[in-house]
């Protein structure tokens, strides 16, 4: 038998699932003692080039409360043409179409290698609705217009597109008119219901989608829209000195939501909001237009000084919920030097599975390439996006599902497998994920409910079925079914097994998600305390210092941004986020070698490459920087040095190519202001506090790394402390 490592890897490859425990403790009591909950990271649409969808409907269990889908784990009686549901043990007849099945003639869904299978359904259109802020600087607006025009060529040709622009007012553009461009204008200060919007834009009351002039197939209005975008003017209303432009983001978004709600409910649609600053008026305003009043900071929020935050958050939450209910998703592309209100708006992408992209300007490659990457295609030439998914989780009787954490909303479907304890978004066995891509990953948490005194028979297996209905980017509706099973084990007798089957990485990420989920809703210190309590035996030093839990030095928007991505990326990326990778290309000239993420690694003669997921930092040590300044790299005799300088660049490029969203790329050197990105991440084994107390007074600047100006404790101290605690608690 393969090692657990291989097993885990295989499973991940095939099903997109990683469990914290791969052998499950057989009773509630034991499971609770294990601290790390039984949970998994599920990537519902994991790319499976080898998995062509089957062309028929799935076979369902006939028990109304179950409706599990026929899977390889089911017991099948080929003669009687019966199958037993492995979740509820209901015996079901095969449908007539399956009359010909036998042991040798099995349908795909019964073959073990098809523990994940995809069914195909009816097509429905894809919709892209651009919501564009026009209160931008000319450069920015120009860049944005170009990006948008470019994107038209990337869209599926039969996708419907729509355009809403906003500034002080909100304009909904009609795309089908010749000779004159027509738009409906709304005041930016007044929210409207979907009904009012429909009336306002004069959509017919019945079957409004039939004649919608606002959403047109891209191939029909390509030219029109290109011209329209070309003629977009900056918001013409004068912005007096000392004021922010009036930006009606809240209403614009509301209108976009309302428009789709009225015309294409339950059809895959992506609302793409491009904004260059905070909403400053109307519902959803985040800050007033007086420049002298800065946008809220964490400090203000803690002091309860953020006047608009609650109201705005409520507004966007309402929108997000409506959008989710309609099966649409909202992306936010916010490019500004200051905050743009992501804190308040985060729920829109978070609840609907939309993207959140944060940058300094639309005129940066960060934005341009990120945006472009949204329309990248997979090996089949399909867009890497899916819409309007519902994820249903079914469990065998010993298990119940406690909740999910990820870009989803609850569908509030109670059932026999729903736990009363909630972890993340719980109380349901179904979730809606309005927008997802092949990397979208949810953390799903389970509870073992088997009582200690009712042992599971030896060799028993627990099963979980994940059923994802979604709209594929090719416009087809599809159903992907993943059925997994794991062995039960008695902790007393099989502790070894269980330990060996522990997936540390998955567990770390799952715990981190729980932590972040709590951080979103609770006070920071409480969460840290909770985490410390939970993880006393887990060494999650870096998570503790990460921006997902620490808000120090981050704006509320940044925190929101980081947490957004943390909650949807897959395991690998999540790990990078928790513990950035620091590499030193000098160890071997071709391959970067990881080094300790510690201040002691920051040496004068080093080149370092740090990847935090959000930033890629290339750092040149003091000596290297001097060499470079001296121009050695240009001298033929120091070609070696040139390669040395080039290596991290190539590597960074590689990462940049693959990652979404594009990370911020930072090239800095010793003493550079941008070096702070590196310094803030490393373990502060040397700080201004202990620089002198440890005996390395004279060592600094030579081989001992750089001191970090922080009051945080170093990993060493943290560990010491932990040890002390562990001992004391043991008593």
């Amino acid at each position, binding site marked *: 038998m393969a090692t657990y490592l291989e097993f885990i890897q295989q499973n991940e490859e095939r099903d997109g699932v990683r469990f914290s425990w791969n052998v499950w403790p057989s009773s509630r009591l034991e499971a609770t003692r294990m601290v790390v909950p039984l949970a998994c990271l599920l990537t519902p649409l994991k790319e499976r080039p080898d998995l062509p969808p089957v062309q028929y409907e799935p076979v369902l269990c006939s028990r109304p409360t179950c409706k599990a889908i026929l899977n390889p784990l089911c017991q099948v009686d080929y003669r009687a043409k019966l199958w037993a549901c492995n979740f509820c043990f209901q015996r079901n007849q095969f449908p007539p179409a399956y009359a010909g099945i036998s042991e040798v003639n099995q349908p795909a869904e019964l073959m073990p290698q098809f523990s994940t299978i995809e069914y195909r359904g009816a097509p429905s259109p894809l919709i892209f609705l651009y919501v564009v802020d026009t209160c931008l600087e000319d450069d920015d607006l120009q860049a944005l217009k170009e990006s948008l025009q470019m994107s038209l060529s990337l869209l599926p040709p039969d996708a419907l597109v729509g355009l809403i622009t906003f500034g002080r007012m909100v304009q909904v553009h009609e795309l089908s008119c010749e000779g*004159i*461009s027509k738009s409906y204008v*709304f*005041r930016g200060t007044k929210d409207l219901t979907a009904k009012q919007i429909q*009336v*306002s834009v*004069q959509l017919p009351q019945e079957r409004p989608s039939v004649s919608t002039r606002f959403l047109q197939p891209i191939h029909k209005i390509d030219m029109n829209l290109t011209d329209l975008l070309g*003629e977009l003017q900056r918001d013409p209303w004068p912005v007096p000195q000392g004021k922010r432009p009036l930006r009606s983001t809240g209403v614009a978004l509301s209108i976009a939501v309302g428009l789709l709600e009225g015309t294409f409910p339950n059809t895959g649609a992506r609302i793409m909001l491009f904004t260059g600053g905070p909403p400053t008026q109307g519902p959803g305003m985040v800050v007033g237009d007086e420049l002298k009043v800065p946008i809220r900071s964490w400090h203000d929020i803690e002091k309860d000084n953020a006047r608009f935050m609650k109201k705005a958050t409520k507004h966007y939450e309402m929108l997000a919920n409506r959008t989710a209910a309609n099966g649409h998703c909202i992306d936010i592309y916010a490019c500004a030097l200051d905050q743009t209100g992501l804190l308040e708006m985060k729920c829109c992408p978070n609840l609907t599975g939309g993207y959140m992209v944060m940058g300094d300007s639309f005129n940066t490659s960060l934005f341009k390439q990120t945006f472009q990457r949204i329309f990248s295609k997979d090996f089949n030439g399909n867009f890497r996006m899916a819409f309007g998914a519902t994820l249903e989780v079914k469990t065998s009787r010993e298990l119940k599902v406690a909740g999910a954490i990820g870009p989803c909303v609850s569908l509030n479907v109670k059932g026999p497998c729903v736990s009363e304890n909630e972890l993340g978004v719980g109380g349901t066995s179904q979730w809606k994920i309005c927008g997802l891509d092949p990397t979208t990953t949810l953390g799903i948490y389970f509870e073992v409910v088997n009582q200690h005194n009712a042992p599971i028979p030896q060799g028993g297996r627990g099963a979980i079925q994940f059923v994802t209905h979604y709209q594929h980017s090719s416009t087809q509706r599809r159903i992907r079914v993943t059925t997994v099973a794991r062995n039960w084990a008695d902790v007393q007798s099989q502790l070894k097994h269980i330990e060996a089957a522990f997936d540390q990485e998955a567990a770390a990420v799952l715990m981190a998600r729980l932590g972040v989920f709590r951080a979103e809703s609770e006070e920071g210190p409480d969460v840290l305390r909770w985490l410390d309590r939970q993880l006393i035996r887990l060494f999650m030093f870096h998570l503790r210092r990460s921006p997902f839990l620490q808000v120090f030095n981050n704006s509320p928007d940044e925190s929101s941004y980081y947490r957004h991505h943390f909650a949807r990326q897959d395991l690998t990326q999540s790990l990078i986020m928790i513990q950035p990778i620091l590499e030193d290309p000098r160890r071997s000239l071709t391959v970067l070698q990881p080094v300790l993420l510690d201040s002691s690694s920051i040496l004068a003669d080093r080149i370092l490459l740090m990847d935090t997921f959000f930033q890629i930092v290339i750092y040149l040590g003091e000596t290297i920087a001097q060499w470079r300044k001296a121009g050695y790299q240009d001298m033929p005799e120091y070609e070696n040095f040139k390669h040395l300088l080039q290596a991290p660049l190539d590597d960074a490029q590689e990462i940049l190519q693959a990652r979404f969203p594009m990370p911020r790329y930072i090239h800095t050197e010793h003493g550079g202001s941008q070096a702070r990105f590196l310094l803030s991440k490393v373990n502060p084994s040397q700080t201004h506090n202990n620089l002198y107390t440890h005996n390395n007074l004279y060592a600094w600047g030579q081989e001992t790394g750089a001191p970090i100006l922080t009051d945080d404790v170093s990993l060493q101290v943290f560990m010491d402390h932990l040890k002390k605690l562990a001992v004391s608690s043991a008593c």
Partner: protein
Amino acid sequence: MNVNQSAPPVPPFGQPQPVYAGYHQSSYGGQPGSTAAPTPYGAYNGPVPGYQQTPPPGVSRAPASSGAPPASTAQGPCGQTAYGQFGQGDVQNGPSSGVQMQRLPGSQPFASAPLAPVVSQPAVLQPYGPPPTSAQVTAQLAGMQISGAVAPAPPASGLGYGPPTSLASASGSFPNSGLYGSYPQGQAPPLGQGHPGAQPPQRSVPPQASSFTSPASGGPRMPSMTGPLLPGQSFGGPPVSQPNHVSSPPPQALPPGTQMTGPPGPPPPMHSSQQPGYQLQQNGSFGPARGPQSNYGSPYPGAATFGSQPGPPQPLPPKRLDPDAIPSPIQVIEDDRNNRGSEPFVTGVRGQVPPLVTTNFLVKDQGNASPRYIRCTSYNIPCTSDMAKQAQVPLAAVIKPLARLPPEEASPYVVDHGESGPLRCNRCKAYMCPFMQFVEGGRRFQCCFCSCINDVPPQYFQHLDHTGKRVDAYDRPELSLGSYEFLATVDYCKNNKFPIPPAFIFMIDVSYNAVRSGLVRLLCEELKSLLDFLPREGGAEESAIRVGFVTYNKVLHFYNVKSSLAQPQMMVVSDVGDMFVPLLDGFLVNVSESRAVITSLLDQIPEMFADTRETETVFAPVIQAGMEALKAAECAGKLFLFHTSLPIAEAPGKLKNRDDRKLINTDKEKTLFQPQSGAYQTLAKECVAQGCCVDLFLFPNQYVDVATLSVVPQLTGGSVYKYACFQVENDQERFLSDLRRDVQKVVGFDAVMRVRTSTGIRAVDFFGAFYMSNTTDVELAGLDGDKTVTVEFKHDDRLNEENGALLQCALLYTSCAGQRRLRIHNLALNCCTQLADLYRNCETDTLINYMAKFAYRGVLSSPVKTVRDTLITQCAQILACYRKNCASPSSAGQLILPECMKLLPVYLNCVLKSEVLQPGAEVTTDDRAYVRQLVTSMDVAETNVFFYPRLLPLTKSPIENTTEPPAVRASEERLSNGDIYLLENGLNLFLWVGASVQQGVVQSVFGVSSFSQITSGLSVLPVLDNLLSKKVRGLIDGLRAQRSRYMKLIVVKQEDKLEMLFKHFLVEDKSLSGGASYVDFLCHMHKEIRQLLS
């Protein structure tokens, strides 16, 4: 007699007054009067001649004239006595220049006709009396017959007048509708009614009269009449006055009844005495019997107002006044033209009465504002408020600050005082003007308004000459002219910023009706070229005005027509509940820069909405949008709204159809004139604050509630145009012509007008299209050359004769190029301590302008009946005061009118019977509201022709003579069925074709061979190459050119259905809606006066 009274005074008419007296006598005194006649005549003649002769000069003239006899040829003969006026009248009317008497018979059937046989007529006759008694009689007889013929009524009229029996009881019963009925029916009655009562006695009395009487059956009736009733009733009753009359004509008065009864035979005090007596009687009788004037009023509207009252009781003699014998507007106008049209009117002299508005004259500004800018009801103001109260003559000025001038006259000079701005009095803030007195060698000046002494700033200092005048007086417009402009400094600008050039926004209804009628297409096509003719200032090559476009139905569509765009952008705003402007840049553009985009837009608008099914519209949000757009652009401007229907879509300012004809003649009638909601006033206020003027073009197919829709235009100095049942084929010319004119005319924006006066009087009330947020400043979002503001003054102290009274009207406005300016008009008036001076310097046209506006405003708050009564009372008081204080003593039976006001009754009657105050069955509520608001900003010339239309015979004068033919009086009697006439009142234009017009004429004008082939209702005359056709079309064009609105031509054939419409404009006749004829009204007025006097 006459002479005495006014004698010297009245310049023009000099003695005219007497005339009246004469008239009076004649009429009432009836025949008896005839005896009296002689005197009147004499007077009359005197006056007449005087009148005519009298040249321009004011006062001086009068005497002379009086002296001088019969300028008027016709009159000449009769000339003397009271007749005078009548005589004139006759002459004027003068179909026949011949002797008055003669005319009578011929021309006016009715005249004498009236029932009241003899009696009443005699009175009339009197004037003629002397000469041709017999003739008169005959005439009368004839009249009677006619009357009879016309309406069997006569007898009825008898009733009215007090048919015998009735009389007796009558007093009680008067009111009989009987009269009424009769009245209306028979034309005849009119006179009779009026006078009836009175007359009877007279007849009997006067010797001559007797003669009449005899002939007339009247005699007999008389008796019956005699009944007490007579008196009062006939005149309508000045109930109150009764006491008075008693006193005055005691003798008879007492006896009245008796006399009456006594009738013919006995009575007869001297004729002279008779008259009085008669009158008295009347008074007496009436008084008691009927209600006071008020009654009059009331009945009027309802039925034949006075007719009825008087009628019943008095059997009176249906005598009839000779229409030719009563003052004729036509004659007055012609005389003034002849006398004053030839020389320029020089404004240097204080208190000069200018020529009539109907006279074509040039003005030379020598220190007072031209009458084109300011006209006053009187140029001689009583020194004290007591006098003013006594006279009851409203003191008002009709001001048209931006009036257009004929090309021969220079527009006001612009004075630039640089940084310091215009020089003003420190205390009252009056602007420097020619009346300011420089003292102390020129170092100071005394304000002519408040007497404050001010320092002359050094840079303005100038030495004085030996007369105390600045030596540079003639170099400075503000020291030598009545009208001039100052460039305003930044202190005079809103927010202390010089204004941006204004903008025009075209807001076009594109609902189903507008599209279907072809309006949208027509308008868009027209705008393409019209935009090249936006008003520009001086020699500017290009107008500074920017334009913007909005279309709407129940939502609004704004257009971005920025020059850099390849195609226009349309922005739809459907949130009409909370209007806003969706764009800033690109909405208001310079025409030449954005021409291509604008043209493209105007091409597309009709296409875009060609298939519209939207029938609902909004209105208030449209104005709101325009106003917000101007606010956003921080400029003033004008909205041109083209609207078709009642705004019933859900939005602010939504209206419901509340047209209810049942309300007419009830106390609730006023609600028809009031706006439905206060929302429009609020909106208007905001518009005014922004300098947003609204011009409204309405194209209704049904009720649109003009009363409410016109609130904003009205309060923002805008205009309303209404084209009912608009069809491109029929109405395009009128609409386009109005539109062109409206767009091209020079407008001032964001204006504030302030009228300052000498200490002693004060502007207290203002009428016109504007808004006032306090009691002194007239705020006009926009003001064009057609808009007039009528200002009423009241005393708050004494004036003194030496200084006179000064008016200064200062208008601060933004020109169409965006320049902030002050236009100043100054006018100096005389002050008097003698009432006679007041009456001698009045201008009836202006008075009517004021009274009409006053009455038209009154209908908003009072029942129409009350308004009418008020007018009549005031008029009677004015005339009675004159009679009492200025006229030479004469018999009460004489109606004596001041020369300057002799047309007051006829004009006032026209006001009373206008559709606002007395609607006919075919007049819609919208029409009334429309006219009501039109009149509010009319100038004197417009009200004049509007109330008394011009009726021009086209085929009377030789074809070669292409000048405007002399008008004839607006009465059916004046139409001959062998001629063609043009009638116009500034809004309507009719071509009336007599049934027996020569074929040749028909052929030349209409291009068809016979009368029957002429299309009734035709609105365009064929262009034919012959003299007559050219002349007629030329005349029509000429008339149109004189008016501020295009008059659509309607061809009316005699005896055709359309003739009813036409007849409405024959204002001297009784109207279908119950309006009195001129003659009747005059009689009624006389009665009122007598009651007041007695």
